C-alpha cells in the first residue's frame, strides 16, 4: 500500500504474519460454519417429495457415493438452473445405469425428471436445466442394473424463485 514506512507501520516479520493469517483463517471458517451466516436454510421437504422418494427407493438402502449431481450453490434466478447428473459406469449389459431421477424437495411438484439409459447410451451422463421455486435441496437417485441404488443431495440457494412453478 505504501512505501513510506515509519515506526508504527513496520513490516510484519514472518512469524507475526503467519500467526495473524492463521487467526484470520480460523475466524473466517467459524463465520462460514455459523448457520444463516451466508445463505438461508433449505425449505422443508414437501409431503409429495417424501412420498416420491419412498416410492422410488422402497426398502433399498441407497449408497451415497457414485452419483454426481452438479448444481450451482447459489442462483439468482430459479427459472433456469443448470443441472448435470452422472455415474461413472462401464454401461455394459452386466453393469450399467438404468435410470436417474431428479426430485425437488420444495417445488410444487417433486418429480422433476427421469432419464433412462440403454446399452446404446455409452455413458451415464445427462445435462439439463431445471426450475427451483425457492432455496431447497435437490435429490438425485440412480437405479443400477444389479438392483442397487445411489442417492445424492445438493442444496441450492435461490434468490428469485422460478416464476409460477
Amino acid at each position: 500500500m505504501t512505501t513510506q514506512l515509519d515506526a508504527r507501520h513496520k513490516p510484519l516479520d514472518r512469524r507475526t504474519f503467519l500467526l495473524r493469517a492463521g487467526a484470520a483463517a480460523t475466524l473466517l471458517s467459524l463465520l462460514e460454519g455459523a448457520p444463516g451466516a451466508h445463505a438461508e436454510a433449505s425449505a422443508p421437504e414437501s409431503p409429495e417429495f417424501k412420498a416420491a422418494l419412498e416410492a422410488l427407493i422402497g426398502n433399498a438402502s441407497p449408497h451415497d457415493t457414485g452419483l454426481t449431481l452438479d448444481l450451482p450453490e447459489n442462483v439468482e434466478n430459479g427459472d433456469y438452473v443448470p443441472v448435470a447428473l452422472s455415474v461413472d459406469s462401464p454401461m455394459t449389459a452386466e453393469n450399467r445405469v438404468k435410470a436417474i431421477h431428479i426430485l425437488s424437495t420444495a417445488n410444487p411438484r417433486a418429480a422433476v425428471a427421469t432419464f433412462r439409459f440403454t446399452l446404446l447410451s455409452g455413458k451415464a451422463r445427462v445435462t439439463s436445466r431445471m426450475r427451483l421455486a425457492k432455496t431447497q435441496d435437490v435429490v438425485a437417485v440412480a437405479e443400477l442394473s444389479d438392483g442397487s441404488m445411489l442417492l445424492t443431495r445438493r442444496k441450492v440457494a435461490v434468490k428469485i424463485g422460478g416464476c409460477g412453478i
Partner: protein
Amino acid sequence: MMKKPPRIKVPDAINAGEVIEIKTLATHIMETGNRKDPSGKIVPRDIIHTFTASFAGQEVFSATLGSGIAANPYIAFYMRVPGPGALTLTWADDGGTTTVETVPLNVA
C-alpha cells in the same frame, strides 16, 4: 406446440464405436399448471412430458419430464454409435403435439 424447430447438435465426424454427446434444445413454454391468469383461473399445464432418442429402431435414451424442467428444455446426453445410421429424436407435449427430428450421423 413448438414455435420453432428444435436445435440439435452432434459431432461432425464420428468413428464407429465412439461415444458422442448429443445436445438438444426444444422451444417450448413448459407451462407448469400451477400459475393463475389475471382472472384467477389456473393456466392448464402444457409441458413436453416425454423425450426419446432412438437409433435404427432401438432406444438410446429417454426422459420423462415434469414441470420442474425449465422452459425451452435443454437435454444433452450420450450415445455409443455402433455404425452409420440416423438418430430419431421425439418430443411429445401435453397438447398432443409430437415433434420428430431425424439427424444423420456421419460415421467414418
